[in-house]
């Protein structure tokens, strides 16, 4: 029973506007893709349960809700993140170059206790548009290596390439962080309508 303890992981996805953050989440959780680009109106967070090493893990994947557009993500967004996913578009150089500042932004805002070992995962998205590609796999991989061996995946939300694998790794690394804490952070209370409360207390 103890090994089956439920775990809730908060994963946040960062990256420039238009790199496909919402599409990746949607592909992974809802197995849906829409070609039509629109700013991520209405995207909040998606929840998915998965198994990681014999454990049931609930992964909450948080969308930026468009607040990344003008570098206006508030610090609240970063609170308690267990893993940070950095996404860029392999066809747009600028989105790759900005990974550095997204990573720094995360480390400053989230202030993890052990910044050197905080789990990041990098996703180079939109590889289905192969002939337009400007960032080589090698370049991306070497950046990831220089930042402490960040796992790197090349994905296509549209074609569902590598999405499943990427998120499995994300969950795995996030859980490692939780397990590794010497002083686990006591859980906070979520306020809810009363019925839900009693329900959860008696089961």
């Amino acid at each position, binding site marked *: 029973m103890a090994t*089956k303890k*439920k775990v809730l992981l908060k994963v946040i996805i960062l990256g420039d*506007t*238009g790199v496909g953050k*919402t599409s990746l*989440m*949607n592909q992974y*959780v*809802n197995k*849906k893709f*829409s070609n*039509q*680009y*629109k700013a991520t*109106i*209405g*995207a*909040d*967070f*998606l*929840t*998915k*349960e998965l198994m990681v090493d014999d454990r*049931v893990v*609930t992964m909450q994947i948080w969308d930026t*809700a*468009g*607040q990344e*557009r*003008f*570098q*206006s993500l*508030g*610090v*609240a*967004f970063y*609170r*308690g993140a267990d893993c940070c996913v950095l996404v860029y578009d392999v066809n*747009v150089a*600028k989105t790759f170059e900005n990974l550095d500042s997204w990573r720094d932004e995360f480390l*400053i805002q989230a*202030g993890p*206790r052990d910044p050197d070992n905080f789990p990041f995962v990098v996703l180079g998205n939109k590889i289905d548009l192969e002939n337009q590609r400007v960032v080589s796999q090698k370049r991306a991989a070497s950046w990831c290596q220089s930042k402490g061996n960040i796992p790197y995946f090349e994905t296509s939300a549209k074609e569902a390439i590598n999405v499943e694998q990427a998120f499995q790794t994300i969950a795995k690394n996030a859980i490692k962080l939780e397990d590794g804490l010497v*002083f686990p952070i*006591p*859980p*906070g*209370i*979520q*306020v*809810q*309508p009363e019925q839900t409360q009693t329900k959860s207390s008696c089961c």
Partner: protein
Amino acid sequence: MDEELNHVIDESRANYLDKDNYDVIVVGTGFVESLVAGALARVGKSVLHLDQNCYYGVNCSSFTLNQLSDMLTKPNDDSTTASVVQPILKNPYIYYQQPPTPPTPAQLPTQVEQPTPVEQPVATEQQTTTTTTNVEESTTLDTNDTSVESTTTTTTATITPVVEKEKEKETVKDVFKVGRQFIIDLFPSLLYAKGALVQLLISSSTSKYLEFKTLDKNYLYANGKLHAIPSTKGSIFKDNTFSLKEKRYIMKFIESVRSIVGDNSSTEENNTEEQEKQQQTGETLESVTKKYKNFVEFVKSYQMSSNVETFILYGICLIHPRSVEQVTVEEGILSVLLYMTSLLVYGESPFLIPYYGYGDIPQAFCRLCAVFGGTFVLDRTIGSINFNENQYTGITCSAGQPLTSKYLIASPSVLSPYIEAANLQPQYTKEQYSRCILITDKVIVNSSECSYITIPPNSIAGNKSTINVYQMENICVARGYVLIHFTTLSNGATARDDLEAVVETFAKKGCLYRDIDADSNSDAKDSRPNIIWSGYFNMDLNTSIVNNKSPLSELMPKGIFVSSDSPISASIDYQSQINEAKSIFSMIVPGVPFLEKVPDSEDIIWNSEEEQSATTNETTTTTTTANTDNSNLTESNNNDDKQE
């Protein structure tokens, strides 16, 4: 998307918004503004939300220690600049103890035995230069990281390695190393478990963005001692500071308040009929409001001991304006009732604390706004407001882009030139608060991580107004440190004048350091807290006078609404700010429900691919309930397997 790339290339307009027309432009991401912005986006209004700072919350923000220290060392004085950038921390003063040159190990015990080592430090040869001049040596406007390091390194140079390890966390230099782990509210606050704000967070579905912790203990400072405030029947029963008769009076008062408000749910087992008979004279809120001129008079009518009166007026009723006489009968009664109904909801204490600071609350409503299509731009504000005749038409933002909207919502500080022009100052009240933020190495109240202390007027060094003290450990604080907030209404004096004596009483003399249950004398001295860093400042906050409608807004040019910039009020609850947000909301969209619940994702009809349109419909929080059921089933199946 190509279009967007072009924008990026055009440097001068790189920061321009794609869209230049909105239903509503909101300036400032303070509490009231964020609520209104979230509510308007929620009902489909297009919202642009700006903030002149590069963080959310204005006066309702939380900062790291490093940020706060910077703000205090580079003060932003409102008299010098034309455009006011809030928050403004006035009369800043930073104090920290110079790390003493450590005594040799042999001398340590002697020092401990001194009755008041901080006030009259043992003048051992090594110490004379530093500790005796503690207060004088404190730096006022000089605590950025580097200067701290330079002052401390010289004094710590002679420290032997062993002692250094012990003293490690007690120096300013060290606390700034973990300064980012502090989350320091400009105005700390407690939320009643059944209070208006918690209810709104639940009903508006914004609670999913927030986490809380319950307060551990609530204290009243009276007669030079801290008294844990007993509030549940069990804790009154157990309490050993009140006499038997006082216990009965407290219970009787609470019962009578319930019956006045007409709360019928009170019936304890077995005594319904007795209770009915026992009820007082059938008083109602109306009748007692007529009968007594204020809450104090009402409380006094019960002829309880002065002990119990203080306990009710300051410990259970938590509305503390300049004078206790200002609390109306109704306010007082409702505050007591709110306290009682909030007990045992999430824990024994009636209060919740935002897990990552109060600053996350406006951000939760901003996120709701963003999820419903609101656009957020920090570090940008109003350059100028544009009018056609007396009709508001839009703004030119600080990035130079002209933007149009039907409505503009901003706080008094942003709109101050217009308020002055229209001579509207009398329409809002300006209150000055004194604050002290103290970081110590040990708790001031034993055995409770997060405690709230109310100090009634005239308790310590003749304090004129009620002082709230709020101790935090483990949350919002780097490990090994304790964060203590002091807040009081100021009578024009500086924060230092208002609070330093209190801070000293608490931390330096350690005389408040005691737990009600513990015999204090013996071990208290060893565990007396040391001040590692403290910062004092004042803040002026404007609250517009709201009574269901906002008169201030009515007097402004058409289309402009003024919000309060105060994150707190005399009450520790948020009803008035929520009412204000509601009233602005309903002036823009009359008759539309305010912050309705976001439907459960399982109740939302997902558009199939072809149906997807520019409107939103992809609000996506997939349900977990179905999955949870599944996992339960798997678990029990496994049990079966084992059994067979």
